[in-house]
């Protein structure tokens, strides 16, 4: 079957290692295959790695699938995987994910061992980022330039040429207009029920247009679907809405550096108590989000079901009084207005909720291009940030958002709250070296508990993901919370 899919943007490159972004990963899952991939339930599903086992604390062994062909016709072997791993280590975007590993060693043609410096628990998570590339195809030179080089801001061989193992090959690509994918005839996964022969991906930026394109039948599948349009999409005959609880947390950080009052835990708590997550989710997100009381969503290691949102206006007022801010205080707040779903509205609603406990908010919303420089400077007392864990793991949130800022290690790089708690730092670091997953989960849960008590930040919600598609498309089996639909497996009736 031939289908047309409309996204809000198209992949910036064909090189899977150039940029760690949703778009590139979505593309990677179509043109390449990872060693393992997540299932809907966050379990791991073997792909190019048939089997895996932990050899010791620092060593993890993968057995590769045999008879897998690249688009070029070459056969995939351990050499390709090692080549890919080495390339990843040089990629500015991915090297961070693979920094715990020392090397990938070849045992035989179809067996490799991943050696980490320290005991590392998240090997399988990182293995989802390892999409073996065709080392022969990508080696050598064209026009005097190395084919394998990764260039972010200029042309490279890899950014325009592809040879992967994925279910699709590129037929044509017109950047910003469309990408046409063709089914790869020699695709290894013969068991896959997928029957899409040709998939055209078009970027449609405007929410309303994307929905219109679906409703008018010009495209078969769209993503994302804005909360406002979801009802309309699900109400339309022959069109179905598929939603998945998402993993991107939306938070507000409270800058202790810029505002004296926010150093006081009671003020922070008051703010958290004053904010009605339910109302935001219900009214602004139209129910297409999950209210959050912590960083990681359900299914993540650190998730603690007891840490629920705590909206209590009286309590909030009480806390303000205790902290000596009975007469209220002034805060500045900044939020992007085109980054997250309904970001500006959420910020506005938050501001208005805070006004109920006497906090006057000077709110400013900006387009993301202007917002990020402000965020880098932590310009306001409260700043909105959403975070999606690249490793689908609780620790990642803390590493970037709530650990003490440390320029050297890069910890707390996005911690505009300047929240700092030695215990949290210690627990997260320990968890990252703990291979016993139960123990590790306990540690991460403790972290969440501390953050909860300290009101380190204001958790708002996890954004849901939504796809709208013609009923003939069997979408729900292939979509997941990670937002990498496995189009290779898509069944069209």
């Amino acid at each position, binding site marked *: 079957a031939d289908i047309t899919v*409309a996204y809000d943007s198209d992949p*910036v490159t064909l090189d899977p290692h150039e*940029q*760690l*972004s949703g778009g590139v990963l979505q593309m990677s899952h179509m043109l390449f295959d990872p060693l393992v991939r997540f299932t809907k339930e966050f379990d791991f599903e073997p792909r190019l790695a048939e089997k895996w086992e932990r050899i010791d604390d620092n060593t993890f062994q993968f057995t590769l699938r045999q008879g897998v062909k690249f688009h070029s016709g070459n056969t995939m072997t351990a050499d390709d995987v090692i080549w890919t791993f080495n390339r990843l280590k040089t990629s*500015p*975007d*991915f*090297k*961070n*994910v693979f920094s715990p590993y020392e090397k990938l060693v070849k045992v035989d043609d179809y067996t490799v061992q991943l050696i980490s410096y320290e005991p590392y628990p998240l090997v399988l998570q990182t293995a989802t980022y390892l999409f073996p590339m065709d080392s022969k195809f990508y080696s050598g030179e064209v026009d005097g330039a190395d084919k394998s080089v990764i*260039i*972010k*801001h*200029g*042309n490279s061989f890899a*950014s325009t040429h592809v040879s992967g193992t994925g279910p699709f090959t590129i037929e044509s690509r*017109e*950047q*910003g*207009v469309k990408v046409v994918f063709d089914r790869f005839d020699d695709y290894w996964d013969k068991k896959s029920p997928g029957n899409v022969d040709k998939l055209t991906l*078009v*970027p*449609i*930026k*405007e929410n*309303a*247009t994307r929905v*219109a*394109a679906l*409703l*008018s*039948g*010009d495209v078969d599948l769209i993503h994302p679907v804005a909360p406002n349009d979801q009802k309309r999409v699900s109400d339309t005959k022959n069109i179905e809405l598929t939603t998945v609880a998402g993993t991107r947390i939306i938070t507000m950080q409270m800058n202790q550096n810029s505002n004296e009052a926010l150093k006081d835990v009671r003020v922070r708590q008051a703010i958290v108590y004053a904010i009605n997550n339910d109302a935001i989710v219900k009214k602004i997100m139209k129910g297409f989000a999950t209210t959050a009381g912590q960083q990681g969503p359900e299914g993540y290691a650190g998730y603690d079901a007891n840490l629920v949102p705590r909206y209590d206006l009286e309590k909030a007022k009480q806390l303000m009084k205790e902290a000596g801010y009975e007469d209220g205080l002034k805060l500045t707040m900044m939020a992007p207005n*085109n980054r997250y779903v309904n970001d500006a509205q959420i910020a506005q609603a938050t501001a208005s909720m805070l006004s109920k406990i006497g906090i006057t908010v000077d709110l400013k919303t900006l*387009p*993301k*291009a*202007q917002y*990020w*420089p402000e965020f*880098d400077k932590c310009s306001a007392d409260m700043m909105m940030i959403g*975070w*999606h864990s*690249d490793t689908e793991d609780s620790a990642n949130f803390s590493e*970037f958002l709530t650990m003490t800022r440390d*320029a050297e290690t*890069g910890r707390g*790089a*996005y911690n505009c709250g300047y929240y700092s708690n030695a215990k949290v730092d210690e627990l997260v670091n320990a968890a990252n070296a703990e291979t016993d997953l139960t123990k590790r989960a306990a540690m991460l849960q403790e972290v969440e508990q501390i953050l909860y008590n300290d009101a380190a930040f204001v958790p708002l919600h996890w954004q849901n993901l939504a796809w709208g598609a013609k009923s003939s498309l069997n979408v729900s089996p292939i979509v997941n919370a990670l937002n990498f639909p496995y189009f290779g497996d898509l069944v069209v009736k």
Partner: protein
Amino acid sequence: MFTFLVQRLFQALIVMFVISLVAFSIQDNLGDPLREMVGQSVSDAERQVLRDELGLNDPYITKYTRFISNAVQGDLGDSYFFKRPAVDVILEKLEATIELVFGASIIIILISIPLGVFSAIHPKSIWTKAIMAFSSIGISIPVFLTAIILMYVFAIELQWLPSYGRGETLNVLGWETGYLTKDGLLHLVLPCISLASIMLPLFIRLVRSEMLEALSSEYVKFATAKGLVMKKVYYQHALKNTMLPVLTVGGVQIGTMIAYTILTETVFQWPGTGFLFLEAINRVDTPLITAYVIFVGLIFVVTNTVVDLLYGVINPTVKITGKGA
């Protein structure tokens, strides 16, 4: 005439130079291009390396001289996103925009002139009132809404017309045109109407009001006395005299349309320069933004030169000379 053109060419260069200077000085206020290039977990040190590679950390003067010395060779830098020379990217997207603007202009001309003339000739007619009321409403409905409403009616409810994109195009002498295929034409309808709807009210009003002035003139009276068919009196004698301001506004608007078809192109996902510009702004693709603004400056100089030349053609008392005094 010749001197005039040479002078204009020279002026165009100055204009482009000044624009580049201004565009360059505001670059830092547009946002951080790095953000759009790297993932969230990339460390600060890595970013600095990239910045150095891109020359973003150089002092302003260095950056600007580098830019200018490349620019004289026709190289305005590579787009970060497209990874190709910005000029090429713009030229490539220009086709789509020109086709869109062309279609919209045709609609505007075909509608605004007859309606404007009609409402000037029959100021008391009920139709005139309807036209004027419609145009007032038209002025206040933002193009975004017009576009969406059109899309909902014609694409979703009636399913007569496609909702987005350019459709099938035909390559004629290196120009991808949508005017020669049925699919391409269908795709043109809604965007062109939306784009036209922004300017239509203005032009109807402008034609009408200038026409009213012209109709009260003696030469129109004399032309009537000569026994000419009234159509000729209105559409030749009076209309030509109304053309100067209409042409001027037209010139500016055509320039503006080519330049900022942003909204229409965004709504209809039209792969043209307006959309390109908006995306460039969102992605902080500074080389592309700079190249684009310079390019727009050129468009304005060119359209205004053409308009100035046309003044001379339309109104022989307006002299076009290259003399500087």
